[in-house]
């Protein structure tokens, strides 16, 4: 499970159905089933991400798997041990599944070539974050009852976002209409996007993009983008691309507000928008555990 591009709509549908069952398990008093008893899952995090790591950890525990955390700062090259070496070591130690987070796009493919068990991508560089995309799909469908024909606007630092790429794969496969909205420097040339995803819309004006939107998904703006010269100021970004209280008022109650977290409140999203009744940001986090259970179960069974 490295990216959603490998999945057909039916397979995504199956995962969402399994997620539903996992969510029921999590609603019980005893939030644990023995499905993966005796299986060993290694959380291999080469990049800090407390949320995703904990989410996978809870998911593995709810399925009674043994979970071990392996956290390495910086790239494997700096450490002197190669990624391949690390993977071989974990294999020799008896790992059945690897969950990998890495700052380099494509690293999970390298792991998959050298690991005999299942590999789950927990986010690689700018490339993909399939479990996040699946939980987004699940949350949207849970609230709106469908994915097909919904208009979903993704706004923010799309160029550097693995979440955006996986969401585009997942949403378009399920028949949703995707609009990308970002300042030009955080998007790159439109035709490069359209070459892979010909049916998406691209806009540089958030207010136009939001017309008729069923879902708006704000992405995190990293402060270092300013130093790279990609943004003149956070203030300008926030006014033109942020989910401000004024935009929130214009949206209406039916438009879901989403954010993959962690949020920069006051930059890409205002505190009012984050806590609005139509915000499902907390539900995304909750559903994340169920989605990851479904992934672990399907790959580890």
């Amino acid at each position: 499970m490295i990216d959603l591009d490998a999945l057909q709509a039916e397979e995504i549908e199956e995962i969402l159905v399994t997620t539903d069952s996992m969510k029921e398990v999590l609603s019980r008093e005893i939030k644990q089933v023995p499905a993966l008893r005796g299986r060993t899952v290694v959380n291999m995090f080469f990049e800090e991400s407390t949320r995703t790591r904990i989410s996978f950890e809870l998911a593995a525990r709810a399925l009674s798997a043994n979970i071990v955390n392996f956290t390495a700062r910086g790239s494997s090259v700096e450490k002197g041990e190669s990624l391949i070496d690390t993977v071989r070591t974990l294999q020799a130690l008896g790992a059945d599944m690897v969950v990998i987070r890495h700052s380099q796009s494509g690293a999970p493919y390298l792991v998959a070539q050298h690991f005999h068990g299942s590999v789950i991508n927990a986010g690689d560089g700018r490339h993909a974050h399939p479990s996040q995309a699946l939980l987004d799909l699940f949350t949207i469908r849970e609230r709106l009852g469908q994915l097909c024909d919904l208009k979903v606007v993704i706004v923010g630092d799309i160029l550097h976002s693995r979440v955006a790429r996986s969401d585009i794969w997942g949403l378009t496969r399920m028949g949703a209409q995707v609009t990308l909205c970002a300042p030009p420097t955080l998007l790159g040339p439109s035709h490069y996007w359209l070459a892979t995803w010909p049916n998406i819309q691209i806009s540089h004006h958030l207010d136009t993009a939001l017309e008729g939107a069923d879902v708006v998904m704000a992405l995190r703006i990293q402060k270092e983008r300013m130093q790279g010269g990609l943004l003149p100021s956070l203030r300008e970004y926030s006014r033109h691309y942020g989910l401000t209280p004024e935009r929130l008022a214009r949206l209406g109650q039916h438009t879901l507000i989403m954010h993959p977290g962690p949020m920069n409140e006051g930059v890409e999203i205002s505190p009012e928008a984050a806590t609005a009744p139509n915000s499902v940001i907390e539900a995304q986090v909750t559903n994340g555990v169920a989605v990851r259970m479904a992934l672990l179960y399907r790959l580890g069974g």
Partner: protein
Amino acid sequence: MNYLIRNGSIIDPARRVATVGDVLVVDGKVERVIDMAEMGVDPGPLPEGTEIIHAGGCVVAPGFTDLYAELGEPGHEQRETIATGMRAAVQGGFTMVCAMPNTNPVLDSAAVAHQVTALAQREGQGHVALIGAVTQGREGKILTEMIELAEAGCVAFSDAGRTILDAGVMRNALAYAAALDLPIMSHCEDARLGLNWVMHEGAVSMRLGLPGLPAAAEEIIIARDIALAEDTRAHLHICQVSTAAGVALIRAAKERGVRVTAEVSPHHLALSDTWVLGSLAPQPNPPPTPQPTPRGKGKSRRNSAPELGLPSWLDPTLLPPYDSSTRIRPPLRSEQDIEALIIGLNDGTIDAIASGHTPRTRVEKECEYGAAAPGISSLETALGLVLTLVHRGEMDLVNTVARLTEGPAQVMGRSPATLRPGSRADIVIFDPDRMWTVERSQLVSLGKNTPLQGQQLKGQVMLTMVSGQVAFRRGEFGMYGRGGPQSSKIAGIFGDVT
């Protein structure tokens, strides 16, 4: 040892000769070329101890000249040594190789030049030509002692894989080189346009989330360097041109008389950025049979030479996604760029095919894509790859051989590699129809980094002769006559030559 190469299809671009015939090599020199017209005539008694090499069905050509290879020594012996690099070269048909100066220490002083010369004479199987650095330590700041480097044997100057970003320094370097009448080989990349880039910026980089280098990063340096060469009247050589706009700039400059030459590597000619997708790429379709088009404005389209055999194609889906063997500098570009490069090669805008041989170690390559060292080990696959394009009908065989022999020799300002009687017998014999499969572990180069692992190529070097001695022979090639007439397909190509 003397040799009579019999019944080969002789292609000697420098003399505009393409014929079936024999080549007699005596005392390290080409003694005589006997062409079809004279076949009936008794050549007279052969000199004492002449071995006959049966080359029926094969092309006999002057040994190839490579303008761009990294031979590792000194300092990067784990990547390549002069001994292994030159063994790889002669296996690939190259009898003369320009050694890039990105060694350690950098070839930026006469002392290092002397050291490499000594090494090459002791260990090398072919001829090694030295390229001196343009700036000290390849840092782009202070010029090297170019006059002394020239005296030590350097045939050109280059900062190998690095661009001199300071236009003032570049202008001074060109002025100095003009006085020495030697070319500056410029690597054209303004990396400020692609922070931490690892591949070509385009649809593929966007999909894979890899930092890209836009084509403009190459174009703006080519444009700048052309302006400076025009200004200084120096000979500017563009290394490893990879973009359509780059080709257009070079073409325009040549048309107005600027002394600019250019080279392209086989991988930039044949592989696009979809190779980074690996198995995520769409399955390749067999290329359509080329339609014969009327001759006319030759520049505006790919060449349509008669096909030599079945269409042959390459399959990027044999690789896993993000395979670090596809990481190269400059990056593999788009299909449109490839189209323009082939047109440029066919119309003479691009003078030479240079291997771009950049061997890398396993440690440097077996890691994350972004952490991998850029480079392709290409001396041994170069001919097979360009012949794939010939078989597809995109280039013609005679012109391809010219871009491997006469073209690069002219860039170096050396007398062209040729089979003219009296010239040094550097000769390659290759079978243009021989199918073979690239197997990484069988490369003699220490660099096993090739994206062509498992690909079927058509065309392989059978024998290479350096200064009249057999430097490489595949199996028992040429020892026994095949009997019967040679491949008529080969004879067919001669229709094009006037």
